[in-house]
Every structure is written in structure tokens, then in C-alpha cells.
């Protein structure tokens, strides 16, 4: 049952991705609507899959690479749908659905077996800490997506190639706005994730902060986004500069999520 739900999600995300890419190549209202229907359906199946796994495992299913990548993919789609609804920008999906599909496909490579929780993870903070962290990650991912489109648009504008794709992508202002809104969602979530992690660490390891690689990298990510938000207060950091920095921030965040788990040893290395 769980596996069926999982592979159905991958399949629907794949179809949604194809629909969104076709929409980017040749926009039409009906294609856009169907693409949206597909990604929404995929999202719902993904939620059902996650809930089903929660019930089967008896704990929050974000405890290994398979589950984490799957949840990351789901949060990216969730955050995308949230902003898509607000800004009515279908074409953002052409950039987000490939990411969501890819994350889920990669998650399928990792062992899917349910494993009982080790004693350190048996805590009520597991749910809050991981869910908040992943929605924070997802906001930063969508911010980076908008930033990437911003850079493409800016490049087209500079070269005065104002036909075709330029017309289909959102305006620079809208992209900058989406980027900013994602940051103002991601930063609070990252802050709450770090604080809840500190509270958990205090009860499990006897110290709220031990400069463990995961803690340190999450703080590094926090510093970078804090710098970006402050940079935006001074007028010079809108647009291109902000776009580049939020893409850098995204890669740092990816390292916090994946690099630390896979490359560094520490209290957080659940491979």
C-alpha cells in the first residue's frame, strides 16, 4: 500500500512536470489548468503516503534519507502551491516540478525499509523540529527557483531578446517579490527549527548547543539569510544581487541538509 502510494506520487509528479514543461514551451490555458490539477493531485497522494507511513511507523517519517528526501519534495510542492495561488504564476511550476520529481526519484534509491527509532530520536520534538526545518528548506528552494528565473529574465533583457520565452516568464518585479516572500517565510521557519533543535538537544544531550556540524551549518545558513534580509533593507540588494545571494544561500542550505549527513560525522548523521 505504502509503496503503491509512493510510486503513484512519482508517476503523477512526472506527468505534472511534463505538462508544466509543455506549458513553458507553448502556453495555453487548458494545458496550464491541467498541469495545476496534476501537481495538486500528486501533492494530495504524497500527503496520504506520508500519513500512511506515519501510521505504519508509529513516528514522524523523517528519520532517514529516503523519508527526508520524500518529505523535502512534498514541502517544495506545498510551498510552491501556496505561492502559486497568491501570485498566479503557473510558469513557476515549470521550474519547481522537475526539482520535486527529481528529489522524489532520488529518494527511491535509498533503502525504504521502516526502521525502529533509536533512543535519541524518541522525542516529541522529532515532529516539530523536522517538519518546520523541511518547510523552511522548501521555502528557500522556491526562493532560489524564483531567483534563477530572475537571472534568466535579466540576461534576456540585457541581450534584448524580448520575444518568446521572455514573454512567458514573469516580470522581474514579480520574481523579486516572490523571492522576498519566500525568504520571509523560510527565515522564520529556519529560526524555529534551530530553536526547537536546541530545546531537543538540551533534553537529549545535556546541552542546547554543542557546535555539532549540523548545528553549525544550520547557523551558517541562518547567518547568510540574515545577511541577505539586511542587505535587502539597503536598496542596493534588490534584484540581481539578492537573486545571486539567495541561490548561494540555497546551496549552503543543501549542504546543511545533505552534505552534513553524508560527508561529516556527528550527532546528526542518519545515513
Amino acid at each position: 500500500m505504502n509503496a503503491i502510494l509512493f510510486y503513484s506520487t512519482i508517476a503523477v509528479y512526472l506527468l505534472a512536470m511534463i505538462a508544466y514543461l509543455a506549458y513553458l514551451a507553448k502556453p495555453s490555458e487548458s494545458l496550464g489548468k491541467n498541469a495545476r490539477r496534476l501537481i495538486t493531485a500528486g501533492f494530495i497522494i504524497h500527503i496520504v503516503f506520508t500519513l500512511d507511513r506515519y501510521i505504519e511507523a508509529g513516528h514522524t517519517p523523517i528519520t532517514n534519507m529516503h523519508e527526508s528526501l520524500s518529505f523535502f519534495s512534498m514541502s517544495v510542492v506545498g510551498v510552491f502551491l501556496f505561492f502559486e495561488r497568491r501570485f498566479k504564476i503557473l510558469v513557476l511550476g515549470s521550474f519547481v516540478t522537475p526539482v520535486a520529481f527529481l528529489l522524489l526519484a532520488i529518494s527511491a534509491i535509498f533503502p525504504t525499509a521502516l526502521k525502529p527509532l533509536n533512543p535519541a530520536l524518541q522525542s516529541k520534538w522529532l515532529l516539530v523540529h523536522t517538519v518546520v526545518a523541511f518547510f523552511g528548506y522548501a521555502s528557500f528552494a522556491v526562493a532560489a527557483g524564483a531567483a534563477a528565473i530572475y537571472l534568466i529574465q535579466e540576461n534576456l533583457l540585457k541581450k534584448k531578446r524580448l520575444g518568446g520565452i521572455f514573454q512567458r516568464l514573469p516580470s522581474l518585479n514579480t520574481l523579486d517579490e516572490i523571492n522576498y516572500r519566500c525568504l520571509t517565510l523560510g527565515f522564520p521557519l529556519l529560526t524555529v527549527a534551530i530553536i526547537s533543535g536546541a530545546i531537543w538537544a538540551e533534553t537529549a544531550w545535556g546541552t542546547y548547543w554543542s557546535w555539532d556540524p549540523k548545528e553549525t551549518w544550520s547557523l551558517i545558513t541562518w547567518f547568510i539569510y540574515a545577511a541577505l534580509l539586511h542587505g535587502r533593507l539597503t536598496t542596493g540588494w534588490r534584484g540581481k544581487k539578492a537573486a545571486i545571494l539567495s541561490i548561494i544561500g540555497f546551496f549552503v542550505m543543501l549542504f546543511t541538509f545533505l552534505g552534513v549527513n553524508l560527508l561529516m560525522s556527528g550527532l546528526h548523521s542518519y545515513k
Partner: protein
Amino acid sequence: MSTSKRGFVESLWEFFCSLKLSIVLLIGLALTSIIGTVVPQGNIPPEYLQTISEAKFKLYQSLSFFDMYHSWWFMLLLYLLTVNLVACSIKRLPRVWKMVSEPQLVMEDGLEKSLANTYEFKVSGDEAAQKEKLKGFLRAEMGEPVVTEKDGATHIFVQKNPWCRLGVYVVHLSIIVIFVGALIGSFFGYKAFVNIVEGTSVDTVFTQKEKPIKLDFAVMCENFSVSYYNTGAPKEFKSILTVLENGQPVKGYEKIPVIVNDPLTYKGITFYQSSYGQAGEGAAYHFNLRRRGGGEAVHLDLKKGEAATLPNGAKLEVLESTQDVRQFMPEFSGPAAKVSLTSPGKAPESFVVFKNHPEIEEQRGGDVFIQYLGADEKLYTGLQVAKDPGVWVVWSGCALMVIGIIMAFFMSHNRVWIRISGGRAVMGGTASKNPAAFEQKFESLVEKLKKL
């Protein structure tokens, strides 16, 4: 002299007030923090010398790379950030405070032109009645309005969440509170470790540098146990602890189970389940031995590290033992011992005997049937011990930070004015955040106004 001095102080002040400094410091902290995640922190010198050359070791040591998060230069960055935070807040807070405490009650032409949202409409009929109507409208939509008469015009002003403009400063304050909490912890607290053998008590714990710290009470470990999942992975590490004052158990602190994620706190000192092991000394193993194919069983007590000579001349020794074999062999459970049996004139053979699975020994064959009855070896529990009087300051800072962030990111200071003069009225509005959302709200206000 005095002007240049003032010039210096002023430029120093400007330097600390600048947002550029904040950005440089934040990025500087981000970049330098990476070092400590690449270079292992707090190892002993020989461990470093195994992986890096001596020259590199000396260089790293002089730069405090082995304990970089407590190095003078990292601390300096943190202190600079704090000063920067305070200076920025002192510089900008008065202006924001004025905006919150003394709102702009009238909408003059200059302000009107600066507003993104305005709507002009006619006011016909009895002007006093119309004013009351508009006042009532704003009260119902936004909150209690303030009416000001100025230069023959009537200004009705209403605002929502003015104090959310202080959110940024609440976040800044929270960071300082967290720093203060961390400093209190580092000056008045400690992190230590202690091993307690089952059935014994200790009143001294040891810091990482093996410095003993005497407690004014004692902690006794009544029992330690590990339980396992069917897969053999550990499920729970549990110590049963009792706090003793002058050798007597303290009421309410008797036989308290302490597991990972659920520590015991007494007099501000907290004990966390961290590790365990076999106490080793004094352990005794119990066996019943008999010849295969009948004969009386002979009881044997064997101490750790000793070999016993059996009636047939063979030597029996316990190599290792466990209270629960499941962690090594998930298909079995219960106590088990790995023994070495050396029959006369033969090479030593080693095998495992299980308390709960005598059938395995049955299958082994050989001269002697060894029934393992278990061991009365003792375990010790390893507890992390921490005293941190600053932790509640840190938590208050965190709570403050969450409140400040909600104010700063999710709330908007919305202001709406209506100016009435000479049969015409203008409604204007502005928001401190999210102009797109406010535009929609303003449009809906206009729609409702039209129907009034």
C-alpha cells in the same frame, strides 16, 4: 584637537551603526564557522598529528582552530555583532518609536501624494452626519479612529498593529538575551561526566579535562538496563537513579527512571543518560556442567579472567559476555557468554552458550554439556552531568525571538486616513509590509465605501 576627537568618536559611532558592518559580520561569522566543521574540535594533540604535519598543527594551534568557537577572534566577531546590533537599534529605534507612539493623525497633500492607495469621493448632504458615518465605517473595519480638525478639514485616522514595527528590535534584543544566557552558562555552569556502577553511589563528577567536581549530594544507580527491538537495534537505555542527601534517599527523588530524552534534575544539576558498560571487576558466571549421555550436573562459578579445570581435565574460560545477546545476534535473546574450552591434547575451541537457548549447546556435540545460568556481573551507567544556570535566560531569549519574528515578518502596520473638506473626501492608506495584500484590502474598503 577636540574637533578631530569628536570626528573620530562620531565616525566610530557611524561605523558601528552601519548596516554594511552587520552584513560583513554575518557573512564573516558564516565563513569562519566552516573551519570548525572541517577541523575536528577538542581532540588531543596526538590525534591531530596522525593526520596533519607538525608545522600545520602548530599553525592551526596558534590560530586556535582546534577550539575555534571559543577562540578570541570568533568571540571578537560575536562581540562586534552585539555592539553593532545595539548601535543600530539605538540609532533607529527613536524614529520608529515616535511613529508608534505619535502617529501621523492628519493626511496633508504631501503625505497623500506619497501613498500608493488613494480614493476620492463626494460627500453630499449633512456633513456632520456624513463624518459620523465614515467614522463608524472605519471603526467597524479597522479599529478605534481618531478625528482631528485642521485648517478647515476633518481628518479621520485609524491604524492597526503599530507596535509590530518594533519586531526587528525585539529580535535584536532577543539575540543579546541569548548571548547573556550563554555567558552565564559558561561562567557559572559546567559540563561533566560520571560513571556509576549498579548498586553504588557517587558524589563527584568529572569535567572533560578530568577535573573532579564534588556535589553536595550523591546519586545512586539502582539498576541499569538496555532493551532491544526485534532487529537487535537498541530501543531504550534506562538507569534507575536515587538522589541521596547525607546517605539518605531524598523524597520524590527515589528510583527515578532516566532514559535518553528524559533526564533527571536535582538542585539545578541535570543527569542525562549517555552511555553504559560492564563494570568488569567482581563479575561471576554460573554454569551447570554434565557429561553428555547422563551423569550428575556439577555447578561451576567462574570469575572473569579465570580459567576453571573441569573433572575431565579440560579448561574453561569466559572470553566475553552480554546480558542480552540480541544486539549481536538478533535471532537469539537473553544472557550469553562466549567461552573457550581446551580439552587435554586438543586445540582450544570457542563458542557461545546461551541461557535461553540450551538447544544450541545440545547441537554442538563434544564431551561436556555446558549449561549457562547467567552472570551476576554488574553494569555501570554513564551519565552526562550539566549545570547551566543560564539556560532559562537562553529560553527566554528564544521565546522573545519567536515573538519578534512573528511581529517583524507576519504582521503589518496598516494605516488609513479619510480627509473631508468642502463636500469632497479622500481616503488614503499604507502598510509597512506586503503592499500587494494591502492593496487588495484597500480595494475592498473602497467597494464597501461605495455601498455606504
